[in-house]
């Protein structure tokens, strides 16, 4: 091993320092803070984000309002893959009775309105809709004067079926050659219940989730017309917690279903529904199930806004985004508003409006 003398050490140190300086200055940089990992949600559990006005192009009375109609009350609505909106609505009666006693603040008193019928709005390039035209009205005795809760299923040949609820507590079905065609009703009801939501059964045939007097029921069919009721209550009501001062769930109703394929490639059935609490308030929750109908109930709520919400009808975009159309209580206690909600909430169809 050699020993350094001073004349040799100095150039060594000089070279080393130069190297360190070049590498250090040339490469080092001051760190910029980066964002936390972004959110990911593919399960459709929400929470629902009311659509921005830039997404609906409707500056309504409530956040996310997707349809503006004058002097009418709105029931459940469904946006279809074709971009049409089917909804139930009825205009005020000129000479209407007083509001029913005991009706929750957010509920529509349909006695104050003309008979409900089903309307269809044409597609737009956003999440909002213009007022539509009537496509279905009550005509059979078993419908008892009102049709509502539309649910449209498109078939591969382009024809559509429109399932609907009636004031008679029975579900009917109508058919049209295309989504914008004329509907022809089948004369008989197909299931006892209201608020039908029909999706293709991943195992073949059709599944209908519907509201029964017991809760949310499930019926199956091979042809979409003849249904066998498998259950009148799928048992999704959360048990009451007597130690908790918050209201307990009392009833589930108005199911709206979809079948999704997750990024993992598995088929799941998601059913959104309205939860009625024992104090009369309402929220939206959901359940997820596999192809064998094993369901998990979400213990929280998809929509917990400051207004009461219900009648959820989901629509899945090709990108896997759920747009949930629902009705929310209005400041005018006589009617409700249709809103569009986006799940997952971080998704943007359009940038939010600039703040004033």
């Amino acid at each position, binding site marked *: 091993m050699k020993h350094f003398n001073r004349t040799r050490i100095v150039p060594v140190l000089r070279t080393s320092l130069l190297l360190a300086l070049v590498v250090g200055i040339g490469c080092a940089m001051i760190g910029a803070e980066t964002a936390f990992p972004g959110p990911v949600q593919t399960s459709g*559990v929400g929470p629902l984000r009311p659509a921005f006005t830039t997404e609906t192009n409707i500056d309504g009375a409530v956040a996310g309002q997707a349809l503006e109609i004058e002097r009418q009350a709105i029931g459940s609505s469904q946006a279809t893959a074709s971009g049409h909106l089917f909804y139930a609505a009825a205009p005020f009666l000129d000479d209407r009775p007083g509001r029913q006693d005991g009706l929750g603040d957010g509920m529509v008193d349909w006695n104050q309105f003309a008979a409900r019928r089903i309307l269809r709005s044409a597609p737009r390039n956003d999440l909002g809709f213009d007022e539509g035209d009537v496509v279905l009205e009550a005509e059979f005795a078993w419908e008892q004067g009102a049709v509502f809760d539309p649910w449209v299923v498109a078939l591969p040949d382009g024809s559509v079926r429109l399932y609907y609820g009636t004031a008679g507590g029975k579900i009917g079905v109508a058919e049209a050659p295309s989504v914008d065609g004329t509907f022809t009703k089948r004369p008989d009801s197909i299931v006892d219940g209201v608020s039908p939501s029909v999706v293709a059964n991943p195992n073949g045939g059709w599944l209908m989730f519907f509201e029964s007097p017991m809760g949310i029921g499930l019926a199956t069919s091979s042809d979409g017309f003849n249904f066998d009721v498998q259950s009148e209550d799928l048992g999704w009501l959360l048990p009451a917690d007597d130690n908790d001062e918050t209201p307990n769930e009392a009833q589930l109703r108005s199911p709206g279903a979809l079948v999704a394929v997750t990024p993992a490639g598995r088929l799941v059935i998601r059913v959104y529904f309205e939860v009625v609490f024992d104090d009369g308030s309402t929220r939206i929750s959901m359940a997820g199930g596999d192809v064998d109908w094993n369901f998990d109930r979400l213990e929280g709520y998809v929509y917990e806004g400051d207004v009461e919400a219900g009648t959820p009808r989901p629509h899945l975009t090709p990108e896997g985004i759920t747009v949930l159309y629902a009705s929310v209580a209005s400041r005018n206690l006589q009617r409700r508003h249709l809103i569009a909600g986006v799940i997952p909430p971080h998704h943007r169809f359009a940038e939010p409006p600039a703040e004033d």
Partner: protein
Amino acid sequence: MVKATHIGAAALFALALMLPSAASATPPDVYGFGVRSVALGGAVSADVNDPSANYHNPAGLAVNEGIRLSVGYTSLTPQLQINGQRSDVERFGQIQIGMIAPVQLGSSTIAFGLGLVLPDQRLARTRSVIIDRPRWEMYDTRSQRVYLASTLAFRPVDWLSLGIGITFQATSELTLDIEGDLSLLGTVENSRLRHGFEGDLTSIRYLQGGIQLLLHERFRVGVTYRGEYTLTSTINALANTPIVAGGAEAARLRFALRSASTNLFSPQQVSVSTATYPVDGLRIGLELTWYDWSKHPSLISTNTIVLALDPEIVDVPDEISSIPPMDLGLHDVFVPRVSVEYAAVDNEVLGLDLRAGYAYENSPFPTQTGLQNFVDGDKHYISAGFGLHLRDLEPTVPGALTIDGYFLYMRLAERTHQKQLLVDGVGDYVSSGNLFGFGLSAELAFE
């Protein structure tokens, strides 16, 4: 209303702090240490003798006759994806400095070494875990850490070298103490709150050691051990504040939070390595490393929160709960590595080595089927590099200058995370990714 707002703020503060906290291992564990060693896929423990021996095998320090100094820069750019969307994981760059100082004592050699990694963006980072946001645990935070190793090696006989080292890290304990008066009726400006902050970074040390057996001029064996350590991070927040109304104390608010989390964990590791020189100028390295990942503690912090108001003039929650620590479910892994080095040019003035390395790391993280979302994937590691030796630098430098460089590609295999619960807060996702890196260093080896 004022009191409710203030108590709400305190509760929010508590909730913000009680979020789970972050973790993982050292930068060299993830990205390697030393440009030559990275180019060789880390399969170097049997014969490493450059400054990267401070990490790979301290015994290699004593297989030197002169002082060696190196400084280099390495960079790794992750391009990681979840469901086809780019994850926001930042580029990682670091300055690596290494030094070896051997001393000849008769027929034996003793060598001192120092290895230092300085991240070029921040010296340390701790980030909360947001449990329902999938995070690339191996790449998000763990790289943001200074690494300092001090080593000593002894070569008593020609065929045996022994090394031992200590690596330094720091745990942290931070305390926020709030006191003063909280006005019940006035505006925020009427409240007089003071806070004190105390931070304590306590150093911890862990052991590493190694052996190199120079069994034959064409065959060497190395064994390296690196000890386990856990860095904890503790946050204390204390408030003991009278709430004043009309000049008198209306109530007293007491708030205490203690959040203890694992900030960084490095598993104990054992590497067994061989280096073979079948013909002149050709080196083949093999290495197998065991990582004891199954000991990894939960990444979710343990929190104790007390919120009391005396008398209780507004409702305060009886209990503020958070997610309890959960088993990560990690398993031990064995990582095989292989490397090839060929001396393409080798004369008294110039030398050029060409290098390549490969490693396969079976991810210790399981697929994320439950509440946790720590994303990782099995990793293929492919590297290629060079070493340019300038051997005739006298009289400017009494020794040789080596310029090393590498390019590195890591492929994180696609992994499907299918949740058990069909209403999971995140849902199913698919993760995959690529990482691209380069490194450049200069090393002076004095005669």
